[in-house]
């Protein structure tokens, strides 16, 4: 209906001038509505994203809220020295890296495998049903996931705890409290919450594979396995690389909510990561400057990681992100 409203001659009207440079004043006047529309959003980014970046300077100060950003004393790299030489750094780095490694080993390949299996399902109804169900956990909050974990794994009446106890026997294990079970539980949670959702992007890539390629492979005598190996897998390789770069850039970003919710006094030794440490030291203990320094170190390391992985991907002959 709407398209009928546009008479054909409208197309002849030149689009607003693009190439000629106009003075800022002319531009402002001419596009005042557009600029006005950018303004609220821009204000958001300046206030809630760029103002905090200015606040990063307190990492080099002994920040006292009362004295403010200008008045607080500058102390150079004191907080960074404190971080690197202090007793917590090794533990934080170790915990963060171990969780990151577990993510790479388990959570990253899981959606690829599931997407490939779904792709081999021949019954469309079944495929759609399974998809609908395994996407659900993505929309549940970490509080809900943590609560489910407590309810299912608790010593007293948790189903899974009871099930394992029934099979293995021995003394009952408190999976949610004991330090040695912290990492397996985190990995399980991540798998449960994000595997299904993660398949979407791979399924899209798989749906885009040209059917002629399978046809050609079949004519060449390729069986199912060979078609998978020589057609399907190469088709999603670029997607895997892009996802790998994106994931690696966030390796240091443990999900704050997930870890915070599963941390207790018994498992702090394995649960403390940079993100929760920043909250603990900064907000609950008021060590703003030190916590900011920890956060800044993590942020810079994260940026280096994402650029490093992008570079590596290009060196390996893949298309990077930028």
């Amino acid at each position, binding site marked *: 209906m709407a398209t009928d409203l*546009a008479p054909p001659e409208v197309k002849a009207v030149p689009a607003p001038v693009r190439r000629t440079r106009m003075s800022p004043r002319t531009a402002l006047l001419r596009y005042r509505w557009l600029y006005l529309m950018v303004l609220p959003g821009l204000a958001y980014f300046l206030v809630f994203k760029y103002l905090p*970046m200015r606040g*990063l300077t307190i990492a080099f100060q002994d920040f006292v809220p009362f004295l403010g950003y200008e008045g607080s004393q500058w102390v150079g790299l004191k907080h960074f020295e404190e971080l690197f030489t202090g007793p917590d750094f090794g533990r934080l780095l170790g915990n963060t890296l171990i969780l990151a490694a577990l993510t790479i080993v388990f959570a990253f390949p899981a959606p690829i495998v599931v997407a490939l299996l779904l792709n081999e399902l021949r019954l469309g109804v079944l*495929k759609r049903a399974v998809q609908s169900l395994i996407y659900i956990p993505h929309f549940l*909050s970490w509080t809900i996931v943590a*609560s489910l974990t407590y*309810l299912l794994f608790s010593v007293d009446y948790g*189903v899974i705890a009871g099930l394992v106890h029934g099979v293995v026997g021995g003394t009952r294990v408190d999976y949610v409290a004991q330090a040695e079970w912290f990492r397996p539980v985190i990995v399980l949670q991540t798998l449960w919450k994000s595997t299904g959702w993660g398949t979407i992007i791979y399924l899209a890539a798989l749906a885009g594979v040209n059917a002629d390629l399978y046809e050609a492979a079949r004519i060449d005598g390729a069986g199912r396995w060979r078609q998978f190996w020589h057609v399907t897998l190469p088709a999603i390789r670029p997607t895997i690389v892009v996802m790998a770069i994106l994931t690696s850039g966030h390796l240091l970003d443990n999900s704050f909510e997930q870890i915070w919710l599963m941390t207790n006094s018994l498992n702090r030794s394995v649960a403390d990561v940079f993100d929760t440490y920043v909250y603990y030291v900064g907000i609950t203990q008021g060590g703003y400057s030190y*916590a900011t320094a920890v956060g800044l170190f993590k942020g810079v390391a994260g940026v280096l990681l994402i650029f490093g992985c992008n570079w590596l991907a290009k060196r390996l002959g893949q298309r990077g992100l930028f």
Partner: protein
Amino acid sequence: MSLRRPPGEYRSPGSRLFDILNVALLLGLALVTVLPLLYVLAASFATESEIASRPFFLWPRRFITSTYEYIFETGTFVRALITTICVTAAGMVIQVLLTFTMAYPLAKRYLPGRALVLNLVIFTIVFSGGLIPTYLVVRDLGLLDTYWALILPLAINPFYLIIVKSFFQELPQTLEEAARIDGCSEFGVFWRIVLPLSKPIIATFSLFYAVAIWNDYMSPLLYIDDTRKWTLQVIVRQLTGADAENALSRLDSVLFPVEGMKFAVVVIATLPILFFYPFLQKHFAKGVLIGSVKE
């Protein structure tokens, strides 16, 4: 898609076996996803003794609703529920308005200064000031312990902004030009032409934003001290977390069905999302994919 390859080729026993195992595996996966949720739902209607004695069930032997009645008589809980609904609704409107009004001008390639603003936005995806500096900004603005603190710091998701911008770029320009010739201002074009064309994508991102606020635990943890301003997620955490016993004593009244309440609260905090899920599902894959194709 299933018809892409002729069925004749899968006659070999190995191929058959794979198909059977594959179906079993994927069904198992779907069950593992759904069974915990169904169990929680069933347990929320069960008596305390049944929860304690039966390890797993999908239908309670004695079906009771008193746990829910109890919860809805608890002031703290009802207040948190109303708070969460209001904050989610208000936040969603603000976020969608801000995102869409900002995305529209950024979709105009001829707009001077557009690249600068876009780069400012993209940079915030790679790097941020971090938790403490953001907290200090929120505090300096006097937003601590206000509902604004749950909305404004997350007002625009830069990923969503870029996706909406890409969507606007794909819209046919002839309509907009026609409206302009008819004397419509840019804002008029946006309001009367572009937004009505964008209904599906508005629905998608409204739901994404709503889910994000509804599920947010970090913001209330950081910015809200006042227990009267607690959101549902905080209540869920207080009731079922490691420090549950301590928190239970802070609630308005003496609580009785402690175990049942844990399950019921999880159900109430999950249900709205599951209720909207079928509507959501129609659009979300599209939303995700626009983002990935337009790299």
